[in-house]
């Protein structure tokens, strides 16, 4: 269970991982995640929270810290109407579930910023706590599910090379 963070505007990588803090350790960089659009985000986000974004989520740079800071801060899943390709790949590779909202799906009015939601990875659904209204997310291809289940690309490759 977690809080829903709803963003209507397009979120780019400079907002997620500002260039000025890119030389800093992840813990420091993450303090500035989204501060440009939602200054309270980094200090109040909690483990299990879900980020729901609009179009072209994560547009911009290839810096994977843009996805990494979200995972570091405890975001359990990023859902968007559409993703920028590199951000999407980065999120999956880091083991951060990223799901598309099905095309033409109407977000029911219960899913407003700040409500409690439950994210069910196995069944690819987001549940509004209280009303139990669900959003069915576009399922991932099997090999990407496996990658996330392994904990991301590195753990996946560790299985292959190191036999862990």
């Amino acid at each position, binding site marked *: 269970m977690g809080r829903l963070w709803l963003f209507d505007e397009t979120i780019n990588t*400079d907002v997620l991982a500002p260039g000025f803090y*890119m030389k800093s350790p992840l813990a420091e960089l993450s303090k500035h995640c989204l501060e440009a659009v939602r200054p309270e985000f980094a200090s109040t986000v909690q483990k299990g929270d879900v980020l729901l974004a609009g179009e072209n989520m994560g547009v911009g740079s290839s*810096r*994977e810290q843009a996805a990494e800071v979200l995972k570091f801060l405890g975001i359990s899943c990023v859902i968007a109407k559409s993703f920028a390709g590199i951000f999407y790949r980065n999120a999956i590779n880091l083991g951060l579930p990223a799901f598309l909202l099905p095309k033409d799906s109407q977000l029911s009015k219960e899913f407003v910023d700040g409500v409690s939601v439950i994210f069910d990875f196995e069944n690819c659904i987001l549940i509004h706590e209280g009303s139990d209204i669900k959003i069915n997310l576009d399922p991932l291809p099997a*090999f990407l599910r496996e990658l996330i289940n392994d904990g991301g690309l*590195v753990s996946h*490759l560790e299985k292959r090379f190191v036999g862990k």
Partner: protein
Amino acid sequence: MSTLAQKIIANACSRNAVEPGEIVVCSVDLAMIHDSGGPRRVKPILEKLNRKVWDNEKVVVVTDHYVPIESEETRAIQELTKKWVITQDIQNFYDQQGICHVVVPEKGHLKPGMFCVGGDSHSPTGGAFGAYMFGIGATEMAGVLATGEIWLKVPKTIYIKWKGKLNRLVTAKDMMLATCRQIGMGGGQYQAIQYIGDAIYDLSVQDRMTLSNMAAELGAQTGLIAPDEKTIRFINQSGGLVPENWKSFCLDKPASNANVTEFDASILSPQIAAPHSPENSENADEFANTVFDVAYIGACTGAKYVDLAAAASILKGRKIASGVTLKVAPASLKDEKQALDDGILKILQDAGAEFLPNSCGICAGYGKDRLAEEQVCLSSTARNFQGRMGAHTSQVYLASPYTVAASAVVGKMIDPRELMVN
């Protein structure tokens, strides 16, 4: 019939043909990394996997982000990079010689038909050489370096067709800003863009690199241009070995049902994109008299040799206006040297330009010259997201080097043709 993208991908996954939507695993011909997303990020992962790079001859390392060294943090990053390159026995290491997207082709590494990845979002630049090249993050890059492979969903090809002839003082950057407005930053849908039409082939190879580079701004995975004689000449002059079968990659005829967006170069005016997106572009005269503090000629799409030459053609015999600073960061050492030899740097200097190192610098918000609070910058770079080039309250307008230079002379934004009426 296969598109250029499909043909390269089919080769890379050892198939006769591939169809859009298929997921395939490709062998990588070249992996480019830089000091920011490269060694410092991939080293711990490769150590964890107990692997060295799969093929040291297929890896190119460039330092361009934390250049110049200006703190203990950036020194540590550069030292780590240098040591790692030695331990991995990587010969293709270009230390502080310019921005990766410009340095890699100028050293002859990119050729038609190659399948390449880069640890930077502007990696589609390689498309200007008929190579399928795209940007990936550091973890995925570590995966490539360990295995030599990467998965990919075969893209559809979206054609951007520019017919007609560009007018004087209108450039590839103007074409690109107009394209961003027309199809939007998500218009590329992470598919392959291919630029076609007479106006594309009329461009110099360095100008084509601007188009391919900014396929990233369209949200495409790559931005291809089919090779022609100009491409081959560029590669030969860069010391690259051109593959004998290069003509088999001259595929630029869209199928009858293909997605083609057509533009007419002959009616294009110089463009300016307002903060905070490249798609906020309009004809430059819509911004007439907008004031700014810093004129910046820099970065991979804005300070190559052709861009420096364009700025110099405006600034020759002129001075920049008082109250405006002109900063120039030539995209590579090679381009800077050529500009020096041709008298271009002298012209820029006499006009009042201040020179910065051959690095990503202000464009990526790195270094001491990043924009201060409330500063307004007119920039020849590719991306103007809020806060990208410095303080959150700074504002960045994008334009061609002609427009940046002419506006610096007037002290206000201007269509460069108004300054150069004669």
